[in-house]
C-alpha cells in the first residue's frame, strides 16, 4: 500500500480482509486453470507486458502464431518464399514428366521431360499461382493436388505481401498523426501554464484589493488550480513515460513555465485572506500539485537530461517542498 503511494498512485484502496476473507464470504475465486471467461482487460494487460496474467486470459495464441510469423518476415523474404514456391512447383511438374509420369498436358499431348518442357512447367506454375489459369496447359493426376495446394499457398503469401505494403503506408501516417498531436499537446501545455500563471497573478491582485467576494475568489482559484494540476500531470507523464521526447528548448520552456507558475502559486497562497478558509477540494488539488511536482527532479526522473533541464527540475521540486 505505502509503496504504491510512494510511487505516486493516487487512488489506491486496500481490501483489508484479503484473500482469506474473500474466500470465507464465498466470493468469486479464480485459479490459474484454463477455464473461465476472458476478462475484458486481460488482453490489454498482456499486450502491455506488465503484470503476470493467469492462463485463463491466454486464448487465441495459436490463432495468432501464423499471423505472427508473417509479421516477423520482411516483405522481400515473403516475396522470395512466393517465388520459391512457384519455381519449386514448376520443377516438380517437370520431374514427374522426366520420370515418365506426365503431369501436364498441352494441346492434347503430354509435356515432355526436356528443357522446353521445364519452361512450360514453370509457365504453368506461374499461371496457376497467380490464379490466372489460362487453360492452355492442364494438370493431370496427382499434379492437380499440387496445383491446388500451390494456388492456395501462394495466394495467401501474395496477400500478405500486399497487406504489408498497405500497412507500412498506414503506419507512416499514424506515426505522423502521433507526432502532430504530440506537438500540439506540448503547445497546449505551454499555453495553459502561461494562462495559469496570469490567472494566479490576477487572483493575487484580487486578494490585495479585498473587494472581491470570497466565494468568487475561491471558485476562480479552484478552476485555475485544476488546470494547473492537469497540466502538471501531463508534464509529469512526459518525464516519466515519454512515448516521444520533446526537444530540449521546448522542454526547458515548459519546465520554466511550470516553475514560474509554482512560484506564483506560493506567492498567491501567502496573500490569500485568512478568513477565506481552504476547502477540502482545494486542499486535495494542492496536495496533488505538490506531490506531482515533488517527483520532478533531475535524479528521480527515469531518463537523464541535460544539466540545463535538470536545474529546472530541481527547482520545481524545491518549490513544491516549500509549497507543502
Amino acid at each position, binding site marked *: 500500500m505505502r*509503496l504504491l503511494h*510512494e510511487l505516486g498512485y493516487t487512488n489506491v484502496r486496500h481490501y483489508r480482509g484479503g484473500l482469506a476473507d*474473500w474466500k470465507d464470504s464465498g466470493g468469486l475465486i479464480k485459479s490459474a486453470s484454463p477455464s473461465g471467461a476472458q476478462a475484458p482487460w486481460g488482453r490489454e494487460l498482456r499486450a502491455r507486458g*506488465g503484470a503476470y496474467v493467469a492462463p485463463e486470459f491466454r486464448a487465441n495464441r495459436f490463432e495468432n502464431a501464423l499471423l505472427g510469423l508473417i509479421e516477423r518476415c520482411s516483405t522481400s523474404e515473403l516475396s522470395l518464399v512466393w517465388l520459391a514456391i512457384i519455381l519449386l512447383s514448376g520443377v516438380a511438374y517437370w520431374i514427374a514428366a522426366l520420370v515418365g509420369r506426365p503431369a501436364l498436358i498441352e494441346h492434347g499431348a503430354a509435356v515432355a521431360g526436356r528443357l522446353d518442357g521445364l519452361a512450360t512447367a514453370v509457365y504453368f506454375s506461374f499461371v496457376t499461382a497467380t490464379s490466372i489459369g489460362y487453360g492452355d496447359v492442364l494438370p493431370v493426376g496427382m499434379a492437380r493436388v499440387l496445383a491446388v495446394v500451390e494456388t492456395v499457398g501462394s495466394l495467401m503469401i501474395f496477400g500478405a505481401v500486399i497487406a504489408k505494403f498497405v500497412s507500412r503506408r498506414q503506419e507512416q501516417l499514424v506515426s505522423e498523426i502521433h507526432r502532430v498531436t504530440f506537438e500540439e499537446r506540448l503547445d497546449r501545455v505551454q499555453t495553459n501554464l502561461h494562462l495559469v500563471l496570469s490567472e494566479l497573478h490576477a487572483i493575487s491582485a484580487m486578494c490585495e484589493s479585498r473587494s472581491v467576494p470570497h466565494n468568487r475568489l475561491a471558485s476562480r482559484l479552484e478552476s485555475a488550480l485544476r488546470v494547473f494540476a492537469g497540466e502538471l500531470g501531463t508534464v509529469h507523464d512526459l518525464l516519466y513515460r515519454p512515448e516521444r521526447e520533446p526537444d530540449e528548448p521546448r522542454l526547458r520552456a515548459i519546465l520554466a513555465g511550470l516553475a514560474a507558475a509554482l512560484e506564483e502559486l506560493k506567492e498567491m497562497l501567502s496573500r490569500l485572506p485568512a478568513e477565506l478558509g481552504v476547502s477540502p477540494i482545494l486542499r486535495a488539488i494542492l496536495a496533488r500539485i505538490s506531490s506531482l511536482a515533488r517527483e520532478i527532479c533531475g535524479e528521480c526522473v527515469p531518463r537523464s537530461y541535460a544539466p540545463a533541464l535538470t536545474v529546472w527540475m530541481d527547482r520545481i521540486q524545491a518549490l513544491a517542498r516549500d509549497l507543502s
Partner: protein
Amino acid sequence: MAEVSLAGKQPEFPEISRDELARRLGDPSLVIVDVLPRDSYEAAHIAGAINLPLAELRERAREALPNRHAEIIVYCAKFT
C-alpha cells in the same frame, strides 16, 4: 526517488469493503491487484485480479499499472 509522503505525515490508507468489492467485480475501471507470490495467485485469486508480487512491485508497478490515477484495489492474504 525522493521521499514523497505528504507533508511528512503518515498517509492514511483508504479501504474498500468486501461488499463494495463484490458489487464492483468486473468493473473495467477498477484494477484489482494481488500482491501475493505468483504460486499463491495461481492457486486462487479474486476473479479478475492481476498479480504483482510485493517483491516485484517497485520495479514493475509503472509497467503493469501505467495509469497512476486509476482506481486500484490492493489485497494480500489477510489483515495486513
